[in-house]
């Protein structure tokens, strides 16, 4: 059996891992939640005797899945009986693909539409509506077990409902489904065919769910039905932090233990991880103010007594923002000796970040930045060609071999799903082919285009014949070109050579630039956040009164040592200038002054 060193885990973590019953684990920030999850999976894998059973772990992102998988491998545990991935991958792999024949909407095959194509399609339908004007961003929706929920303002619901139903009709006529429908159809299958949850419950020994606080109701029902069908044979390990539930607008919410018990009908024990190893007490004191759930948190790490700098600026004008950030960055690196990859700049919205990243990188050419505006091509993890790009643009090296091999077999599975006869391709032969192709093209996107063609000629596959591949190909280049145009329009020097492209996949380096949602799970010595304005934090459409609390809680809990909060002036219109986020403004805290 898998064992760990005494110092690897604290008592709370060990208790959670050794609990024989199912567990509902509330973990405060910095409490080693991922570590606990990783060790729990490793332990359950090591005692799994039935070769026909799987430990299933559902993570919020592909990246988290990859990381946990690698960590478990590094612990020396065989991961062949581990299935780990996002809820969408879970539904695709375990429910939609094997059981699509039992759903009328799926039985003649289906393709998953790219998020970029969704945006294009919905935007197109939006154009027919003027009063009020509807944009793509109004059209967020998600399914619940009782129907569709829209995240737009109440006055737009009628129009958005129309748009979404036109959009759905279009998808159906093309045998396509989008990400929300993956969940919806999986839910329908599970509900209509009780055999499916019975069968799956016979296949799983454990279902682990990370970040439950961002899980949607329909997702709780999907894995809840499986757990229920298992009659207690399948154990659950549900972990997360209700204080960090920031995906309410997409339907995510922190389920209560009672509701979880009634959804799963199994015995579940409630436990807590309360020791924060990340931040100083001063930082914890600050963000604890924003708690919405009364879960425990105590400083327990080396930085407990660290003299943290916590500043809050409400006077700065937005035009001064770049200069001010540059000053903080310089000060942190040059005076406080913080490494650049330990600094994180956070803003609520993506649009605030892209241009900021670019102007910071021209102000601070000596430092590098790792942010959304810097990626010259669409970062769509589910796009086939993005996945392939990941292999093409990483250097073949012994340390990456296993990971690239895994990506390679993922590519082969995608090919098979697309209907390609891939029986002659192995993950090794595919890697070898990719490594052996030499192309003398300096332009990054041009390089990829030639590379894709050359590779498929060598594989003897005409990808244009397979609609999934063709659609993804079109999308990949269309969205990348748009992105490059945007970067060019903003007058920065377009860094589009193949060397720049390769940098995208180099391991995390440079100053991180991220949205609040994107920084989830991360930790940095220094956190700088701006755009903390009412209407942005919380979002003007957000009806949940506690969402500003949670967003600031997430920002605040990322920092180990120092945090700088900014509610800048000059945003909004002349008549309606945006004001600092109320909750933040109302917090009486002994902020540091520069």
């Amino acid at each position, binding site marked *: 059996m898998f064992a760990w060193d005494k110092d690897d885990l604290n008592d709370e973590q060990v208790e959670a891992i050794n609990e024989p019953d199912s567990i509902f684990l509330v973990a405060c920030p910095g409490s080693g939640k991922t570590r606990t999850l990783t060790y729990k999976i490793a332990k359950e894998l090591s005692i799994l005797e039935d070769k026909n059973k799987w430990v299933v772990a559902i993570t919020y992102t592909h990246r988290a899945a990859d990381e946990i998988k690698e960590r478990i491998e590094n612990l020396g545990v065989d991961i062949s009986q581990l299935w780990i991935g996002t809820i969408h991958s879970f539904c695709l792999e375990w429910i939609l693909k094997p059981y*699509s024949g039992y759903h009328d909407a799926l039985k*003649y095959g289906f393709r998953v539409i790219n998020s970029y194509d969704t945006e294009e399609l919905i935007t197109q339908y939006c154009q027919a509506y003027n009063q009020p004007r509807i944009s793509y961003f109004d059209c967020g929706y998600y399914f619940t077990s009782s129907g569709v929920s829209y995240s737009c303002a109440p006055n737009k619901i009628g129009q958005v409902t129309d748009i979404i139903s036109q959009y759905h009709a279009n998808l159906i006529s093309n045998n396509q489904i989008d990400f929300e429908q993956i969940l919806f159809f999986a839910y329908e299958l599970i509900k209509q065919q009780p055999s499916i949850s019975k069968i799956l419950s016979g296949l799983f020994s454990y279902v682990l769910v990370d970040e439950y606080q961002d899980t949607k109701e329909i997702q709780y029902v999907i894995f809840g039905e499986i757990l229920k069908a298992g009659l207690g044979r399948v154990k659950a390990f549900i972990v997360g932090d209700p204080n960090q539930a920031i995906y309410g607008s997409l339907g995510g919410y922190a389920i209560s233990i009672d509701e979880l018990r009634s959804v799963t009908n199994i015995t579940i024990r409630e436990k807590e991880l309360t020791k924060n190893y990340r931040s100083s007490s001063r930082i914890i004191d600050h963000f604890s103010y924003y708690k919405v759930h009364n879960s425990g948190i105590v400083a327990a790490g080396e930085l407990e007594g660290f003299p943290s700098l916590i500043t809050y600026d409400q006077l700065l004008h937005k035009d001064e923002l770049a200069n001010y950030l540059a000053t903080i960055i310089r000060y942190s690196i040059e005076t406080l000796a913080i490494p650049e990859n330990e600094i994180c700049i956070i803003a609520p919205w993506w649009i605030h970040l892209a241009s900021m990243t670019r102007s910071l990188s021209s102000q601070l050419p000596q430092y590098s930045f790792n942010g959304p505006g810097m990626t010259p091509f669409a970062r769509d993890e589910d796009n086939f060609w993005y996945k392939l790009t990941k292999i093409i643009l990483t250097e073949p090296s012994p340390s990456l071999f296993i990971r690239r091999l895994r990506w390679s077999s993922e590519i082969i599975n995608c090919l098979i799903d697309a209907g390609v*006869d891939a029986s002659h391709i192995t993950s090794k032969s595919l890697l070898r082919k990719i490594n052996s192709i030499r192309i003398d093209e300096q332009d990054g996107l041009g390089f990829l285009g030639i590379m894709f063609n050359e590779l498929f000629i060598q594989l003897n596959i005409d990808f244009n014949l397979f609609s999934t591949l063709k659609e993804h190909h079109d999308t990949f280049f269309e969205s990348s070109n748009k992105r490059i145009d945007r970067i060019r329009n903003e007058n920065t020097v377009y860094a589009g050579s193949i060397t720049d492209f390769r940098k995208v996949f180099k391991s995390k380096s440079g100053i991180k630039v991220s949205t609040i949602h994107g920084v989830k799970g991360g930790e940095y010595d220094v956190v700088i956040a701006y755009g903390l304005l009412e209407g942005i934090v919380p979002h003007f459409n957000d009806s949940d009164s506690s969402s500003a609390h949670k967003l600031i809680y997430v920002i605040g809990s990322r920092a180990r040592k120092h945090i700088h909060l900014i509610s800048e002036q000059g945003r909004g219109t002349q008549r309606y200038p945006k004001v600092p986020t109320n909750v933040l403004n109302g917090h009486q805290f002994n902020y540091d002054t520069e």
Partner: protein
Amino acid sequence: MHISKLSLINYRNFLNAKLLFSRGINTLIGENGSGKTNLFKAIRLLLDNSMPRSAIRLNEGDFCRKLGDWRGHWIIISLEFDDIKDDEVSQSLFIHGVGNIENQAVAKATYNLIFRPKANIRQALGLLAENDHISLNNIRDNMTISDYETVITGKSSADFNSPEVYTSIVGDFDSVVFPRYLQSPEVGSPIPNVLSMSDEVSFTFVKALRDVVYDFRNNRTNPLLTLLKHKSGEIDPTDFAPIAVLVESLNSSIEGLPDVSEIKVDIKNTIDAAVGDTYSPKTISIKSGLSDEAEQLFQSLKLFVDESDDGHEGSIDEMSLGGANLIYLTLKLLEFKYQKANQSIANFLLIEEPEAHIHTHIQKSLFDKINYPNTQIIYSTHSSHVSEVSKISSVNIIGKVNGLCTVFQPSTGLTSREIGFVERYLDAIRSNLLFAKSVILVEGDAEEILIPILIKQVLGVSLDELGITLVNMRSTGFENIALLFHDERIKKKCSIITDLDALFFDATEITTDTDAIKKRKKKARGSQQKGTERKVALDAFCNGNDWISPFYAEHTFEVDFIKYGNRTYFQNIVDDVYSDAFTITTSKNNLNSSDISVRGQRALTMANHQGKGWFAITLGKAIDFNVYIPEYIINAVKFSHGTFSNDILLKIITYRFNRLQKFASSTRESLASNPAQGDANFHAQWNNYLLPLERGMAIFQPKLFQFIENGGDIQLLKAAMISDIILTSSNMILERI
């Protein structure tokens, strides 16, 4: 769980075949070349992990030749499993991959190999306009086997054997309508990566004439080692500890043998002497390497068997082939028993022709006693001696219908009572009819003995050559067996030959009749009455079934046989039947009578005197090529066999011509060598008889030779023989075939 159905579409010999299996033991009956091996190959492609992975990649030669142009068509091999439950946790993975959900529950599973054009081709076909044959031909002409892909799917809901379903999945080539969708639920979903069928079920194929001794020697195929491997992991360490100690002391005892130490010293000295102290190794020892690991020790275990009950246990190499095979099969079965504990959810054993391995008596008891749960055995055979053969509810028959390999289930649609009757009735001899190409059912010994002789003598070909199996029912209960021949069951022709028992003498009672005569007449009238009733019933039974037809002897075999000729044959054996001189004379006179009531009665009396069977043998010896075959018999043969092929007709004509020639020349010889035997008149009569015959033969012979040399229209040749050689009996048979 067991295999309940195998469907083969366009695969090798099979254009469209459906085999049904039940749990336990199943029999596959088929003549050679009927495709049994291909059928096993099909199952193995799906289940046998000892087949190379590349085997599922089919090629052009795998398409059924009867299909014609294969391009665009699919090959489908589909297995269906029964006895499946979705709350049976051990089956979860299997069901996840291949289980069919119907009415909110899983009761069966399907597992299919589909060889079809790749998606781009199917898409192109799907876009064709209806009746656009030009574009279709264009696509098909450019298609090669590299445009094909193999997919393995589960959960298919389609009945692939239905031509309509095939058309809806694959497309309609006649009207150029192809499915628009690339995927259809009928075909099933691809097997998820997590399912590996060979981990779920265990499968063993025992091919005919396996070299079992080799298998025992080979570590990979030795079933004993597999069994021991299962067991060695379970050994209690405390049980094994003393053995390990023994092995250790054994090793040191061996090492301590004086000869061994001596050799050790000698080696060391020789090296020192040869290379000198500096370069020679410092120490050398000889160690005994008997392993103290259970698994390795177990490898030294060998099976010794006392086969001949003489107290000597020999190794497998010394055993008879049959004995070794028996041991092999037994160990395989035991392996299944262990595997059951080892989580495999079902065991499948395919045996090709066990009669090639094991003596039939042993087979009988072997199959009778095998009763492992979750173990299904499917074996092929062409021996009617395996007891399981008669269990028609678990029998599949492979045969050719119109040149197409077809599979029948002889028990389809029968009630369990009917099946029970058939199974009890089919003994080793009668179960021959399951192997037959066609069948004639007869009611008694006389027919059983004489019909083969008549056919062989007259046509020169045996019933076997005609593919006809004659089965003696020893009663008139034909319906119970004949019901097997049916559109739903065995699609082979079956003639039924039976007696009408019509009166051939006046059975009206008159006052002068003695009691004995009265009794006989009454019985005869009764028989006639029953005969008529039987005919009504049998005609009704056969009506509407193209596979069976009744043929009636007007009276009874012996009477019908003598009714239209053949009296010489009876006369020739009177001496063999009777010894009393008076009876002999009376009999000869009776047989000469022109009145059928007299000579028919005599024929019957002779048969009853000797016993019908023995009499038939006596008569059989006397029969020659000129015998007259009663019409109903030749009709029965024609119905069973179908139209005579040109080859067979030529064989018959040649045979009859040779016989005539031989007859003519030997008669001439005996006339010449024995002039004293008869007077001039006798010679003249023979001459008159022989001359036209010889003349005719002289005219016909070159035509026959010409035909044999160059071929031609066999019907013309037949007509020529009839017109050239004037001989009533010969012409009659020729006209009738």
